């Protein structure tokens, strides 16, 4: 009986170590929240010429790239990595694509800004929402 209990404990430890998704990461969470706030603030200025905001756009782009690379390096973190990939894709319709459109157009229409802001907010909320649901260590 004792031997079987030891075997079951060993099995439990093995199964317990086989998580399917990464655990909650405070740095990931904070990084996403900070980028959300800073990006949305910058989008508010997109009615103005892109050239006036180029350094801020570059800063957000680099930070978002770093966030993506950080997520890519975490084990069992494919889902969050894919979400960041969509967020920064220059050919997509979220943050990366928005910056390209702003740069190419010079400015964007006032009616477009709140609509795009809603989408980018939602994208960040999905990333943040998933991270906050992950199991805490």
């Amino acid at each position, binding site marked *: *009986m004792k031997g*079987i*209990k030891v075997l*079951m*404990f060993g099995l*439990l430890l093995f*199964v*317990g170590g*086989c*998580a*399917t*998704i990464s655990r909650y990461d405070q740095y990931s969470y904070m990084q996403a929240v900070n980028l959300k706030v800073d990006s949305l603030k910058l989008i508010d200025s997109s009615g103005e010429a892109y050239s006036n905001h180029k350094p801020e756009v570059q800063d957000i782009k680099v930070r978002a790239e770093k966030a993506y690379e950080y997520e890519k390096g975490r084990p069992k973190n494919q*889902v*969050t990595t*894919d*979400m960041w990939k*969509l967020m920064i*894709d220059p050919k*997509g*319709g*979220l943050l990366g*694509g*928005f910056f390209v*459109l702003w740069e*190419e*157009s010079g400015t*964007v*229409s*006032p*009616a*477009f800004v709140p*609509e*795009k802001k809603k*989408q*980018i907010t*939602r*994208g960040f909320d*999905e*990333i943040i*929402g*998933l991270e906050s*649901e*992950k*199991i805490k260590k």
Partner: protein
Amino acid sequence: MSDIVEIVKGIKGDILALAQTHCAEFVKEARADGEAFIDETKDDLGTWATLMVAGKISPKELESLVRGKRDLAKMTFLKAKGLAQIKIDRLVAGIIDSTIKRITG
């Protein structure tokens, strides 16, 4: 030997109870999210088409919004996938807890 049979029987019951709770919740949430997304998309497309016809947004901006909607659909799917994985991990953790309790009695 009868102890082990009892432990296994108990664990089986715990697993079924945990699985039922986690899966039923997940299916309900995923269905509600999907339906809400479809309704939202219909409304958004109508709003954007009106804005473009009125000249308030450019065709390129409309295209960007449609692409954004497509990407958000993928995001929603990915989040649902991640949440399902989290539920599986929670289920496994629950099974481990209840098994340890049954073994240590």
